[in-house]
Structure formats: C-alpha cells, structure tokens
C-alpha cells in the first residue's frame, strides 16, 4: 500500500490537493476562499495530468535533429503531447471561470456589502419582509382614508 503511494507520489499529492480544493469550494462561506478552493482543485488536476503525461527519459514532443540533417522520428523517444494540451485547455477554462466568478462576487459585494452568500440571502429576505410590511401599511392607510 505504502509502496504504491510512494511510487505514485505525484498522483497522491494531486488527489490530496483536489480534496482540499473541493472541500474549500463546498464548505467555505467566504466567496473569495471558495474561488481559491476552485483554483486549488483545478491545479491538482493539472498536476495529475502532467505527472501522468511524463515518462522518464523521454523528450518533449518536438522533433530532435539526428546530427546528419534528418530528424529522430521514433515515437519511443518522445512523451505523449495530449496531456499537455489538456492542461493548457484546462488552464484557459479555469482562468475564464475564475474571472467570471470574481466579477459576480464583486456585484454581490456591491449590492449586499458582504462576501458571504448566506448573509446575502438573510439580508435579501429581511429587505423583502420590510418591503412587504411597507406595502401592507400603505394599503391599510388607503383603506382607512
């Protein structure tokens, strides 16, 4: 068991990191901390992919010159380029999602003055109740006059 963990220590670290990220994303009340959790989770996935995509002793998937004007073409010399491509795509996605989440968080802070989504809900229901009470009062005044 421990041997396997040591052998796959990159993957083990990635799993632990993604666990930390997911717990933060789900359980933190503060939105900024939630977004940091999201980023930790995404980074863990990139670590996992990078670790899986790397084979020791092989070069990056760019053709190497063989010294006599040709190229070394054996596929045994290079690593698979797809995991790196997946990481790049993932980074793009995570950056755009983070930007969007931060923009919405800013909007929420402007309206409620809090970064806590539950506090925002409480304030909203309070405001609604006050509004309804005011409408009721106004209606009563109209009726009595």
């Amino acid at each position, binding site marked *: 068991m421990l041997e396997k963990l040591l052998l796959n220590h990159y993957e083990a670290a990635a799993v632990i990191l993604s666990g930390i990220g997911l717990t933060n994303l789900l359980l933190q009340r503060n939105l900024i901390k939630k977004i940091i959790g999201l980023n930790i989770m995404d980074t863990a996935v990139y670590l996992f992919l990078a670790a899986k995509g790397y084979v020791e002793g092989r070069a990056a998937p760019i053709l190497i010159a063989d010294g006599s004007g040709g190229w070394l073409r054996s596929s045994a010399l290079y690593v698979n380029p797809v*995991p790196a491509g997946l990481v790049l795509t993932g980074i793009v996605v995570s950056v755009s999602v983070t930007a969007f989440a931060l923009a919405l968080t800013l909007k929420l802070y402007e309206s*409620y003055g809090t970064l806590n989504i539950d506090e925002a809900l409480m304030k909203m229901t309070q405001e609604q109740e006050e509004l309804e009470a005011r409408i009721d009062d106004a209606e009563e005044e109209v009726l009595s006059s």
Partner: protein
Amino acid sequence: MINMFAYNIPFASIFLMMIAAIITPLIPNRNRLPEKLSCLMIATVGILSAYLLYSLTNSGQSLNFNFSMGHFPAPWGNELRAGPLEAVLSLVFCTAMLLSLTGNLSSTAEDIAPKRRNIFCVLVNLLTASLLALTYTNDLFTAYVFIEINTIAACSIVAVKESPETVRAALRYLIMSLVGSGLVMIAICLLYDLTGHLLMQNMHNAIQVLVATKSYMMPLTVSLALITAGLAIKSALYPFASWLPDAHGSSTNASSAILSGLVLKGHIFTIIKIFYRVFGLDVIHLLRMDTVIFILGLTAMIMGSVHALRQKNVKRMIAWSSVAQVGYIFLGVGLNTTAGIAAACLHIIVHACVKPMLFTAAGGLSNAAGHKKGLHALMGTFYVNKWAGLGLIAGAFSMMGIPGFAGFASKLSLTLASFDHATVVWALSALAASSVLNALYYVPAVIVVLTHNKDAQKNFTAHAPTLSYKISMFVFLALNFYLGLFCVPLLRLITRGVNVL
C-alpha cells in the same frame, strides 16, 4: 450514403452559432437587430437539423456517421457523430430556443437594459452552440470544454437581469456548476489515463478490454461515479438541485424557459452518451451505476413535487416541477435498457417543449397581474391574457399526464419501458405518486387562473399579448398536441437513434 451537404451540417450548425455569438456585439444595438439576427441564426440551424434528420432517415442502411474535424483519422483527430437521435434533439433544442426567445420578447425588453440586450443575445448564441456541441460531439474532452462554456453562458443569462437577487442566484448556480464540472474534469483525466483515448468509441473498446480482464475496476468505478455525480449536479438531479429554483425562479422569463427546458437537457444527454456509448449498458450494470441513478430518479420525482407544493411564487413552483421531471428522465436512464433510454429521450423532448411554454405562460400571466408573481395574485388572469392562460392549462395537463397532451406520451412510454425491469413495482408506484403530486399543485394553479375576480381585473394592466407572443404560444400548443397524439413515429425514430448511438 449521405450527401456532402448533410454530412457537414453537424459541424456547420455549431460553427454558425459560434459565428453568430462573435458578430452579435458588432452589429448596431437598435431596432432589436441583435435579437433578430440570433433568431434568424437559430432558425437556420433548426432548418439544417431538420434537413439532416430527413437525409439520415432516407439514407438507407447506415443511419449515422462520424465527421472527423480537419480530416485527421480516428484515434488522433477530434470527431463529431450524428445519428437520428442527435438530429432530432438539435431540431428540438433550436425550436424550443427560438420559441422561448420570440415568446418572451416583451418581458426581455422590460427586464434587460437596452445597452445589454446584445450581450444577452451573445449568451443565447453561445448557449445554443454549446448545446449543439454537447449533442454532436464524440470526444469527451470537447464535451468538457463545451460544458464549461455552457456553465458560463447559463450563469450569465441568470445574472443579465440586473438585480441583487439574480446575482446571488447566479453565484449559487455558478458554484454548484463549478463543483460539477471539476468532478467531470477529474473523471475525464482518470478515464484518459485508464484507456489512452478521448474519443468515445475508442474509449469504449478499451473499457471492454479492461472489464474483460478485470483490471483497474476500482479506478473505473470511481471515474464513472465522479462523472455521473458531476453531470447530475449540473442537470439538477434531486439531492443536488438546491440551486435550481433560485436560478430559474428569479431570472427573466426567457432565461428561465431556456435554462429549464434546454440547459439541463444538454447535460442529461451527455450522461446518456457516456452510459451508452463510452461504458456500454453491461458495464454500467456491472458497476451498479444504473441502480444509483434509478433510486435518485425515484427520489427526485417525489421530492421535486413535494417542494413544488410548498411554493407560493408561480415561477418557483414551475422550477421545482422541473426537478421532478428531471427525475422522470433519470428513471428512464436508470432502467438501463434501450426502451428505457428511448423513453428518457422522449421525455427530454417533451419537457423541452412543455417547460418553456409553462414559463412563457407564467410570465404572460404575471405580467397581466401587474408583475406580481405570487400564485394568489394571478386570480382571473386567464381572462386578460387568454393565450397565456391556455398555455398554462395545456402545460399543467401535460405535466400531469392527461391523455392527448405531450406529457402523457412520455409517461406512457416510461411505464411500458419499466415493465421489462425487475423493479417494475417501484417504478410504477413512483410514477403514480408523482402524477398525483403534480396534479396537487398544478390543478390549484389552473383553478386560480380561471376564477373570475372582478375587483382584481380592474387593477390589471390591460396590455394585450403581442403578436409574437401569440404565435409562439400557438406553436407551443401545437407541438404539445402533436407530441401527445402522434408520438409513436417519433418514439420509433428515437429507438432507432438509440440503437445506433
């Protein structure tokens, strides 16, 4: 063999919607030009999908084809795959999207500031593109990318109606969606490591080998569980549906219609493809995922309706009813037979036609009642906006499963499909209980709308429904009756589609 024009339609429809999303912000933002352009593009794609469907069903023996992007052959290149089911779904998605937009033109104009209306159109176009891509793609990582595009666009069309409430709902929706897509991404990475492929068919072959040799069963189960959980969060399967009523209940009517009717369906169809095309029904049964989905579907059918019963706001009530309807679809998927999945797909289509109609109708009625959304405020509104009233009544009857309306067809086929299954008693009793519960909250709504209320009617803002509203509602009603009365050829077509999925 299919002709060259039809062969290019899957790619062209995704590409057209992406182009539309790019050029919408560039055209002048007046005379509602952006909206007209979006509607035109969606209609074009709808017609293209109809032509694709026509040529697929008339092509003879081979009912589906793979479109390789950039002409790279299978294990390396990216692929789209189109069959009758994909063509039907994209036709339905385009139709429902178009009708949700045209039916709610006036409420969109009220809710969204003029300078942001072209941005709304960008989001709608992106959403359509991502739905089409999720329908057609044969590559799991492309599916992931479009799931994320879908997430951003879907959360933005909630937030585009600028109010503190919608921002909060959008944030909640976004966080749940991000949890879901994070799980999907982890699962896709695991599957790629296990199989060495991203294309669904190659993955399927590799998984068959893994299962036959009984190697890596644990990681396979974990990745299936993660991808199912991730997509279930995004398609609002019951225990994960807490975000849905806020997002669907508070946004503008067009957004609610699109989100409830279409966005959930894109993710559900992705689950169906993963079950059927990537893993195969035998492996799903071996890994026990069908039982999990079946039980969650049953729970959703009951709990969605129970929550809907307690709502006072009409839009939130319809939103919770979506949770129950998603439960029906997952019940079909959980049956894990071709008939079950075909019934689930029929219910996807039915719900994609009925739910936007209900939201459009509810929007029209609350507009007639002076923008009040409370159920009691709608008393007598049928007599102010008859089209909206008819839409609500037909939609409610359809959701209850009254014969002749669309919901009856899909409930009947779900019932028939569940007879092949060992747990038929559970499925039938849940279907019965859920239908009764549906009636318990839809019938009072219909009665309230139909009750004469002279005092309130004086206060109603008496603006008649616009022409576009009437036409959209008429098409919705026609679709509803078509699906209810003539669903047999459609179901046959879907079954053929599922067989070659």
